[in-house]
């Protein structure tokens, strides 16, 4: 790990002092952590079941079948039903459900005449209503957020890895490799991204698990969108390369790897950091857009794009879907943008550069 130079530390301190951005950052991190522990808050599985003197914790791990709790079936227990049953029996057994007792895939067709699109109902703990197949909108929002954020961060890391590698290669070596590399990047950048995604998604074997499908979608998206950052990295590397300290390092006899990793990159990092939040925002929007168009995550993966599509198609009849999804989307993207603004301000070179 390279050490942050005092200048970067100063920048980070400055970032903390920009209250709006800093708080947005904290909220965002908090929300993501919450979503990572989503199974404890929004889940169809119970947190704790006390049955015949034993404690069960079904949240994570293998599923319990109905027979494990004295029900007549051997598929997964319906814990809400179990809770009602225990309450009725009035014995010592009890079930503790999470705050929202629904999973993102589960269709709550329990109620007579429930045909999808039930409005928000606090009694039934559908705080944001349900979608077309009676799935809880809040559950899908939360798990959708988790997937979108994870996806966006994976996207960020991968695109930056490629962009930094290619960008510093071109910038540091310069000359012919720069010329050729740049032409390659220009050509690659002109491959129509959306068409490629559509084509590749359609030939992807569906036999893979959802995890694989999401990862391959991520890789496809990264493959066709790393080009944008290379220009900036290349330019920054070019600029830094001409500085005296690089010449000094060269004179001492440092090899290219040492120079790039030890000297160049720490100074280029500010460029990366300022762009990062906007890349995250772009990734969230593009995965949502792809889902909206139907080329994104395979159904029934919870996703904001899919919710948004349902919401738009049923704008008059089920406004709660579009309201909650759009609010969530706007809220998240606003937070990310605030963070981005703050970082940009904190890393503004005009504040710290000294010109000779």
């Amino acid at each position, binding site marked *: 790990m390279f050490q942050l130079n005092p200048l970067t530390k100063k920048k980070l301190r400055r970032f903390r002092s920009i209250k709006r951005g800093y708080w947005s950052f904290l909220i965002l991190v908090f929300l993501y952590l919450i979503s990572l522990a989503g199974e404890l808050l929004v889940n169809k599985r119970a947190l704790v079941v006390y049955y015949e003197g034993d404690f069960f914790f079904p949240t994570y*791990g*293998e*599923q319990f*079948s109905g027979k494990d709790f004295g029900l007549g*079936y*051997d*598929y*997964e227990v319906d814990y809400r039903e179990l809770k009602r049953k225990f309450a009725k029996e009035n014995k010592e057994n009890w079930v503790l459900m999470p705050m929202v007792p629904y999973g993102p*895939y*589960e*269709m709550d*067709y329990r109620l007579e005449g*429930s*045909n*999808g*699109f039930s409005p928000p109902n606090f009694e039934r703990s559908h705080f944001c209503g349900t979608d*077309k*197949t*009676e799935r809880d909108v809040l559950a899908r929002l939360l798990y959708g957020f988790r997937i979108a954020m994870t996806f966006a961060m994976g996207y960020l890391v991968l695109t930056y890895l490629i962009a930094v590698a290619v960008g510093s290669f071109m910038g540091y070596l310069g000359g012919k490799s720069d010329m050729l590399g740049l032409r390659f990047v220009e050509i690659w950048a002109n491959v129509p991204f959306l068409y490629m995604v*559509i084509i590749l998604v*359609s030939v992807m074997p*569906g*036999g893979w*698990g959802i995890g694989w499908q999401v990862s391959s979608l991520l890789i496809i998206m990264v493959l066709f969108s790393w080009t944008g950052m290379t220009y900036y990295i290349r330019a920054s590397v070019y600029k830094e390369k001409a500085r005296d300290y690089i010449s000094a390092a060269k004179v001492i006899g440092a090899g290219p790897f040492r120079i790039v990793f030890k000297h160049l990159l720490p100074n280029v990092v500010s460029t990366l950091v300022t762009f990062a939040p906007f890349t995250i925002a772009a990734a969230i929007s593009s995965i949502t857009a792809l889902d909206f168009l*139907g080329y994104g995550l*395979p*159904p*029934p993966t919870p996703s904001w794009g899919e919710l948004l599509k349902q919401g*738009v*198609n*049923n704008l*008059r*009849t*089920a406004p709660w879907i579009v309201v909650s999804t759009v609010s969530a989307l706007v809220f998240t993207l606003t937070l990310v943008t605030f963070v981005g603004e703050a970082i940009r301000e904190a890393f503004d070179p005009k504040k710290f550069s000294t010109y000779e």
Partner: protein
Amino acid sequence: MNKVKYLIPSLFLLTNLFFSGCDNPKLKPPRSDSPSTEEKTGQKGEMIDREFARELAREFGKEFAIEFARQMKGAGSFSLSEINGSVEKNSSGGPSGILNDRGEAHPLLAGCSEDVLEFYQKHPDCFSIASTGDIPANLNWQEGTDEKEFSSPDAQKGGTWEVFMRDFPRTLRTIGPDANGAFRSYLLDYNVMSLTHAHPNSDGYYPGLANSWAVGEDGRTVYFKLDPKARYSDGENVKVSDFFFFFYFMRSKHIQAPWYNDFYGKDKFQKVTLYDENTFSITFYKAKPDIVERVSIRAKPEHFYGELDGEFLSKYQWNPEPTTGAYVALPENVDKGKSITLVRQEDWWADQKRFFRYRFNPEKIKVSVVRDYNKAFEIFLKGGVDMFGLAKTEFWYDKLPDDHLLVKNGYLSKVTFFNQTPPPSYALRINSQKAPFDDLNVRIGFHHAMNFDMVLEKIFRGDFVRMNTVADGYGERSHPTLKARDFSVEKALEFFGKAGFTKRGGDGILINDSGDKLSVELLTGYRHFEDVLVVLKEQAKKAGLELKLKVLEPTSAWKAANEKNHQVVFSAFNSFVELFPRFWEPYHSDNAYQESGDSKYQDDSSLKPGLTTKVSTNNFTQTAVRKIDQLINQYREEEDLGRITDMAHQLSQMIHDHAVWVPAWKKPWLRIGHWNWVKFPDDWGPKESRDYEEFQVFWIDQTEKEKILSAMEKGDPVSDKPTIRIYEKYKSE
């Protein structure tokens, strides 16, 4: 020019290849079933040169061929005249009667071009001309006089009927690549007249281009007498020779429509005979019970096409053929990318004809492009579209509920019309070739794991009913008692258990002894039915079955299924309104494997190992069962309706037992919303209506339209109770 020069040295190569009868399809004459070899001998060289010249003209256009011949003059292989048309006739009249002794075309074929005549001559067994005296005297001529008209005499002419389409058509041809779009219906299917039409309320027929018809003694020849008034929209009369030309057209490779080439091929349509200006007959290969309908073709305007060549597609891309129907598409009414307006012919020849006089009422049909379905619905609510299909549950109940202001005020009607027609075959098609579905028990277990009851109840709110057999909706021919397998976790587990899937894994999905998960991929191109599949997926988990959904673009999904790469595909075919269902396409082993006929089976009737899958057929289930094959073969040969019925029942049962087809649902009705200025007959429509446009029996009441529009402006209701109508006359159950 350079190109031509470049070609000269290769000529000898070409001719050599041609002589050696090479397999290159480009060089072969398009119709390889040309005269027998004996005829050819003696003048072989000449014939081939001439043929080659003509072939060039067909393939690359006349201009090219003439230029080519000019270049070749020195080599002495061609003469210009051969291409230009004044060819010497080298065959005598012969038994077909197409040419007389002097080598002139029969007067009935006066307008034929060289290429077309030659085609007829080449197939003397298909095309012949006889005299009036050759018409059998004892024919029982039918005119459809006993049939009742299914339209209303109250119908008013005039007004513009506003409809929408999702995409602008890529061509105004009705055949060939890209022609089979939604717009074609307005040009052809709803519009153009056939010789006769099947009556949509009875098993009879009513006259179209033909005034009368008669089935010959052999049961497979149908005689037609043309309506002398029959005319195309360009003023030309419909001639009997147009029905010769129809087959020239449909069998031409230039239309690039192999399906039609095959469908109208000579093994089915064996012979057309012309007798006089009005009378001709068509001979089918079998005496099917619905023979009249099968041979009731449409007229092809020979005067318009002349002959076909390699430029067919581009030439007629935006140049629609003259029509015998009421509506014409004129190039000036095409607003590219936006709309096409069809105009009713002022002096349409069938204007006063029985069965047609009260139909095709609007003066114009304006078909506009609206790409988004929900947007189209909003336009409908604003009055920009006159009718809108409300089959979808959320449209019927949520978006246009009975207490919607437009309905309450009497501006809009909601109509449910019970019809009787073979439904589109919505079903899960299991590929029985792919593991684990090569095991019958897994297939049956899969049937029991599909909770269609919940789909019907929750997603379609009980309005749809379960389809039960592979051939529902064919009246007597549908199996009367067969029922689809019900959803039952116990039964599913039992059958999965028999197949070795006995334990549940940690995620609740069944595994067998070797640790394989019971997990299958379900492919579909229907994004709008994603919710149905999600319900099936969640419910199947109860039975320990994991469904992995793969929702693709319709074309990609279709391609994947055509390549037989799927495990299960959810899809539907449109069924034809026919007397009896088809089994050969989807269930015969010849459509599953390339090895033909019985050679696929071992002595014990099991399939031989290492068979080659046949792609691009409708046998999505890869059904290959010897007994089913044998019965289908018999079924196709059978001519007696009673026995056909029995066999259809047997086949339905056998396919049910084979368990490759999980029937989904059918709609026993049509459900639409329409503005109240659109009026319908008292029965609303005929029994066999598949959609609200098909028979065009409605009309636009313009005074009513003005009334409603002005009332809407003021916000006054035009009626004090909502207009919701249900027509149950043809309700079957």
